[in-house]
């Protein structure tokens, strides 16, 4: 790393008794170097510009709707293109509820998988076992959506009808069961999609637990599970929490699969079976129908809110994961 070469220069400098080695003074004086520096730097500036442009363009696109509805947009419950009245609370709730149910299912499964791979699998076998999970992460969202619509929803419809018939008195099961698409279907497809992501990151985080601590526990006579439960998990809890938050971010921003199985209707949810929009699915399914500028602008406003929520989630996750891995971990799924 170039930072280290700087350190090398400094140690050479010390060894020479204060005489600066040539390299330290002549770092960027070559003409070609200067041009190269400017080019490389401009590409880095482009990345910053892109980020700024992203925010600016979303705000500009949503400006008409922001001016019209302001913050009322976030708490209102009407989405009426005919009356030109827009607000987004039910979709925000729909999105978050689906995300949380997905996490409720995904967290134990992912942690179980990650612990198994890290602590119960010999090193040579680890890639073999984590490979299917990585493959699952690589499947495009649209294919999850198709599989969900044609293979999963019919099964869920049967389960829902049964649940309603037998436990219909329970408010969560007292909804339109025969659609099949809805909160439950959306949550389950999200669960399948975020599990590999949370597993991959928690695996990396669990690998940062010092081996000596676990071996210490084992030497004291604990079982392997006791060592994991009492040493490894407490040690890495912040990072694991970060992994979960990151999974939530992915679940909240997921579009195609949820559009296909979430059941797209704009309403406050009352049960697990209600069809409901996510923010992303509302944008995806209504954008082509938006016939006047305030409608388009309101959809972009929904996008801006979605962007804000995912950015908050992702910043939190970055911070937590960075904290545990001391910046050593690259977040690429």
């Amino acid at each position, binding site marked *: 790393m170039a930072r280290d070469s700087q350190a090398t220069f400094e140690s050479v400098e010390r060894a020479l008794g204060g005489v600066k080695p040539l390299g330290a003074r002549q770092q960027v004086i070559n003409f070609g170097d200067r041009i190269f520096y400017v080019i490389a730097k401009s590409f880095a500036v482009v990345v910053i510009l892109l980020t700024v442009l992203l925010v600016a363009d979303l705000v500009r696109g949503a400006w008409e709707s922001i001016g019209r509805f302001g913050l009322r947009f976030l708490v209102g419950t009407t989405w009426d293109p005919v009356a030109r009245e827009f607000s987004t609370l039910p979709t925000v709730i729909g999105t978050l509820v689906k995300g949380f149910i997905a996490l409720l299912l995904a967290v134990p499964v992912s942690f179980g998988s990650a612990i198994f791979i890290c602590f119960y699998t010999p090193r040579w076998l680890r890639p073999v076992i984590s490979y299917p999970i990585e493959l699952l992460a690589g499947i495009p969202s649209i294919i999850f959506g198709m599989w969900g619509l044609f293979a999963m929803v019919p099964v869920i419809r049967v389960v829902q009808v049964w649940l309603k018939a037998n436990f219909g008195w329970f408010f969560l099961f007292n909804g339109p069961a025969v659609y099949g698409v809805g909160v439950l279907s959306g949550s389950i497809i999200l669960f399948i999609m975020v599990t590999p992501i949370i597993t991959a990151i928690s695996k990396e985080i669990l690998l940062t637990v010092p081996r000596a601590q676990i071996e210490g526990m084992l030497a004291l006579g604990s079982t392997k599970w006791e060592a994991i439960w009492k040493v490894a998990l407490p040690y890495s809890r912040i990072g694991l929490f970060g992994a979960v938050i990151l999974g939530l971010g992915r679940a909240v921003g997921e579009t195609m699969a949820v559009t296909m199985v979430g059941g797209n209707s704009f309403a406050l949810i009352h049960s697990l079976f209600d069809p409901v929009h996510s923010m992303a699915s509302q944008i995806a399914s209504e954008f082509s129908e938006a016939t006047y500028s305030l409608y388009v602008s309101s959809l972009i406003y929904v*996008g801006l809110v979605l962007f804000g929520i995912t950015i908050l989630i992702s910043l939190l996750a970055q911070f937590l994961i960075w904290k545990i891995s001391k910046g050593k971990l690259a977040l690429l799924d």
Partner: protein
Amino acid sequence: MDRHFRFRKFIEWATWFGMLGCISVSVFFLVGILGYVLVHGAGYIDWEFLTAMPVPAGETGGGIANALVGSFLVVAVAGLMALPIGIGAAIFINEFPSHGFGHTVRFLAEVLTGVPSIVVGLFAYALVVIPSGGFSALSGSVAYAFIMVPIILISAHEALRLVPDSLREASLALGIPKWRTIMGVVLPVSSRALVTGAVLAISRALGEAAPMLFTAFGNSFWNVNLTKPVATVPLLIYTYATGPYEDWHQKAWAASFVLLLVVLFTSVLTRAFLRSKSNE
């Protein structure tokens, strides 16, 4: 003491089986999805499907040639935009360390990987589609490029980090300017990991449908003009899968099979690539 010990042993076994169960959940869904796509899609694939144009709804036959070419076109142009930005910025971060700036760029890249693809689509819509007055393949490329840049940047940065300093110093000590050192020593040494990152970004973009909804938009005709709407495979799958015709569903499965084959093939390939590297 003995009973207590047996209880602890039991917990150990129970958790072991529980965790094995967790792994099998993922494996179950993987096999379920791959199997379902294989069964429903593979039989429909023939030469005609890959090379013919779509036919009007209701007629059987026809293919997805325009979507295959469209996907290729949009992703290729996106790659041309994203590769220099991603790799150039990574070179800057790693080879010209600056206190705040480099860290900021790297941090932003990590944040950008978390931006939902539908929001990226809205961005491309506001940036390109509105000013240019219509949907176009180019706006789709901009959206894909935006998805690809942070992935390429982060993987390239990690790749450059792994290049040993001794190589840079050896080159500099021979009096070779820094830029020649980077182009002639650092990049070739890390080329394999750079290619892997680029392929990863491309395969990720290939499967994205959401940003195409209001950028490339889709097209039932042949088009290689960047300023006109163009069909892409993920978008075609969405249209066909949510449509009312049984024949469309068939075609959606077949197109999913093709897409899955391409995406998983690149993933397996890059993995093999990386492994042969780590064996060296």
